[in-house]
């Protein structure tokens, strides 16, 4: 396959227009879609996450990189599906019931997608039964719950309980995050992990998938 490192650069620089143009060029040249993802897109989002972690990138840069990655992925996804390619894992994500804050959840969602996961993003103010339904219908193996307010954190517990009652708790690993959330709270409600930021969330999700493989 030809060198498409311009795709890596475009995503890292948040240049959606170039990312899409290079992807179209690669598809026209019959490039391997799996290789485009694994060699350029995932590494670009990993590097974006690293720069975010060391405060070289901030939320705007991360959102721009995510937009470029998504633009490219939209073109590649049908080819991946046609080849029967499997995602790194299936993640159901949402901000919990009563909470409309979604920027943190969106960052995690984008970084997971950029990390090769299939992400089912339920949005904000998501009721526990919606999480349950999505886990069942998408056969998810990870659930990510976000909250920004201390007063909505109990909805995380309610969601974990709903997964138990529905009999799907053992099928999924539950990750939680958000400004007021702590590891202690994750332990209290029986979540499997706490991610203090988007890159930690991706790293935890990868470890959990690897542990279950």
């Amino acid at each position, binding site marked *: 396959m030809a060198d498409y490192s311009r795709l890596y650069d475009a995503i890292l620089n*948040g240049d959606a227009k170039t990312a899409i143009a290079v992807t179209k060029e690669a598809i026209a040249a019959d490039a391997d879609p799996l290789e485009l993802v694994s060699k350029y897109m995932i590494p670009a989002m990993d590097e974006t996450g690293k720069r975010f972690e060391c*405060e*070289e*990138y*901030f*939320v*705007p*840069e991360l*959102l*721009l990189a995510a*937009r470029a990655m998504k633009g490219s992925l939209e073109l590649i996804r049908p080819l991946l599906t046609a080849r029967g390619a499997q995602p790194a894992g299936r993640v159901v994500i949402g901000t919990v019931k*009563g*909470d*409309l*804050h*979604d*920027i943190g959840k*969106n960052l995690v969602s984008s970084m997971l997608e950029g990390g090769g996961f299939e992400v089912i993003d339920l949005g904000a*103010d998501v009721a526990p039964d919606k999480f349950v339904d999505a886990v069942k219908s998408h056969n998810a193996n990870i659930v990510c719950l976000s909250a920004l*307010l*201390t*007063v*909505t954190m109990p909805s995380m517990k309610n969601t974990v309980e709903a997964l138990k009652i529905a009999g799907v708790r053992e099928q999924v690993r539950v990750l939680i995050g958000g*400004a*007021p959330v*702590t590891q*202690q709270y994750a332990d209290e409600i029986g979540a499997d992990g706490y991610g203090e930021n988007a890159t930690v969330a991706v790293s935890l999700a990868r470890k959990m998938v690897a542990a279950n493989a």
Partner: protein
Amino acid sequence: MNSRERVLAMIEGRPVDRLPFMPITMMFAARQAGVKYRDYVRDYRVLVDAQLRVAEKFDIDHVSAISDPAREPADLGAALEWFEDQPPALVESQALLADKSRLTTLRPADPLGGGRMHDRVNAVALFKQRVGGEKLIEGWVEGPCAEAADLRGINTLMVDFFDDPGFVRDLFEFSVQMELGFARAQVEAGADIIGVGDAAASLVGPAIYDEFVWPYEQKLVDGLHALGTRVRLHICGKTRKLFGGMGRLGCEIVDLDYPAPIAEARATMGPGQVLLGNVEPVGVLKNGMPESIGAAIAACHRAAGPRYIVGAGCEVVRDTPDGNLRALRDYARSQPAA
């Protein structure tokens, strides 16, 4: 020395009898008063009663009209979702400026027009009646980045910085002019200080902050000073990379959230800046024990030095045990400033 005199003395660099104590209490105050937060944010009399009660009980040196960031957007016509016992939330999918072109015809809301902004002005006026001259009366406005995020949608604003910088500047200018009008009404009603909350500013890095946010924050702070009032700046989140700009704004108080290293803030902002904060509100203040809270606030004080006001990193959360907030109060009481 009463509470108001204590805070003003600290701000002006005069001797104080002990450290001032100015935590942000909103849902905590409502809970203490036994009222639902929906009522607290909708009826200034409920807010004022709750603030006075919590200030009395915990010997807090100020009372504040802060409640939620949705007052200005509500009066401009933005869609809100209401909850019984938590702050109203803006619905980003129906953001007022989802269509950018609306900005050209949008006019600042009237702070005395009978809406949610007027309710805050009424709160300040009632504070003035009840505790004027005794407690420091704090009004509140949104900073340019926070207000712009509330009107445009925070996710969208973050990419607007790159996609349409001219629009961002126009939106920030609109926000500053509206907030100055809102602040003027609160100052005229009796506010001694205006809090400026610019939470969204911590999501951008120093390059965007310096280029876009800081100039409008400066315009707002200068405008507030021209009104003859004082300024408490509070930016939620990680602000370490923004310390230089925050220190140059000339705010009387810089109130730091818990992820902001206070020693570094002191080093960057210089010895004259009054710093406030910044005990972690959940892990330490809510979940900790009085002894550990005392140690944590002492560490903040040591790092900040003498020009310092005791407070939590951000809002005191609703279910914080009384004894834990008393631990902060006790520290303030026990510490004569240098």
